[in-house]
């Protein structure tokens, strides 16, 4: 492959806080700070992702599941010697990969965060945890759902017993939902412009 700045410039412009990537000096503090890194969760550390962006490795970056491994612990942000808002850059890249249709829709965090969690917000204005859990279990179909459900039934029962989980997953919308929805629609319209999404 060949070094190519097109992708870097695309990221600087379209991805949240992406322009910071040019300031990385490859010291490795972010990689050493990331909790999941030590569990072999990712192939490329944030530092490597940044170098790949600058090299122009578009597909490798956008199809990588590594950006989806961020627990939002913010260790990288507070330690970065160049003040890069790394957590937000990684979130931005993940989002950008999703928008560009490069992110694997079945990537667990991608699927959960976007199709389950976010859609749950959009649907009612708030997150209904019960609904969230159900959806999560059944995201891979009925069978998988029941299996998952059984696996977690103790905890679920515990939560029900503790009155910290609704017996029924259904919840109503917030009162001002229409306005809320209108707001989001407009927000997306503006967002899509920036992300250069069709």
């Amino acid at each position: 492959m060949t070094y190519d700045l097109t992708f870097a410039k695309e990221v600087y412009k379209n991805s949240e806080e992406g322009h910071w990537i040019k300031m990385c000096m490859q010291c490795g503090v972010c990689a050493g700070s990331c909790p999941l890194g030590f569990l072999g969760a990712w192939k490329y550390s944030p530092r490597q992702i940044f170098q790949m962006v600058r090299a122009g490795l578009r597909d490798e970056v956008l199809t990588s599941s590594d950006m989806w491994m961020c627990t939002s612990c913010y260790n990288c942000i507070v330690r970065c010697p160049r003040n890069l808002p790394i957590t937000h850059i990684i979130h931005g890249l993940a989002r950008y990969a999703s928008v560009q249709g490069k992110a694997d829709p079945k990537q667990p965090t991608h699927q959960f965060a976007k199709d389950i969690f976010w859609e749950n917000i959009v649907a009612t204005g708030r997150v209904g945890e019960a609904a969230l859990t159900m959806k999560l279990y059944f995201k891979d179909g009925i069978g998988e759902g029941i299996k998952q459900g059984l696996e977690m039934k103790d905890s679920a029962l515990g939560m029900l017993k503790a009155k910290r989980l609704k017996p029924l997953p259904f919840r109503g919308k917030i009162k001002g939902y229409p306005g809320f929805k209108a707001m989001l629609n407009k927000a997306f319209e503006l967002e899509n412009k920036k992300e250069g999404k069709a």
Partner: protein
Amino acid sequence: MKEYSFFPGCSSEHNASAANMETSVRSLCKMLAIQLNEIEDWNCCGASIGYAGGGVIPRLSLSARNFALSKQQQGDKDLVATCAACWLSMRETSERLAHEPEVKAKVNLALKEGGLTYDGGIKTRHLVEVLIEDVGWDTMKAKVTKPLSGLKAAGYVGCQTNRPFGVAGDSFENPQYLDRMIALTGATAIPFAKKVACCGGALMFSEQEKSCQLTRDIIQCAVDGGADCIVTPCPVCQLNLEVYQGKINQLFGTSFNIPILYYSQLMVLSYGGSWTDAALHQQVVPADVMKKFV
């Protein structure tokens, strides 16, 4: 009586995962003459994974809407959150609205569609900040009537109450405020190396095994340190550490059964509050160790 505008967040709703925090916080505030006025019809803050579906403007609009409502209903009162993720999203939103005019303009275009507008000015704070800065250490200490003597607690600050903003200017790597809060109830805060380690946060849903490894290490560290319980200000940490203990034991052959409590539960008890005031009946891992203090 100090009044604040209040954003409980989804997990603090009735019958939600942090209902026990909600209850104990309400009791605590009553005892400390703090009045929390919940924003009517608030919406979700987007939390730490809102980015995936939300991107920048939709995500920030969520908190902006709550700001706008708070302003309408509560005027300039400080907006207080008890959930780390809620506080973080709100704090991030208010900073970006304050420093990025372009973002602020776009967000307001969105708000307008919902018949709202927000021009800034509301200070978003974590309840712990309110306790430290507005109530003060001395007052908090003075309220103690039933010191939790002999209780050994591991103060687990976690991530989002601590980074990137941090509470009351405390350090990112070795914050002290939680240990001080534990100490003021008469309990002992054990030295706890995993104080600011990550529990996996929202990835507990999508990367359960990896997150469980993180929580396993955290709980193990507390147990090794001889803790009777782990104390945290964060509902996500509380959930991940408590509800998944069974899963962790099953994955790693451990036999953890350690209660995970909120600082508010300890304080309420030490202030002479009842078992239910402290919502200790709502624990998944029973907090029997606390029984002797009521």
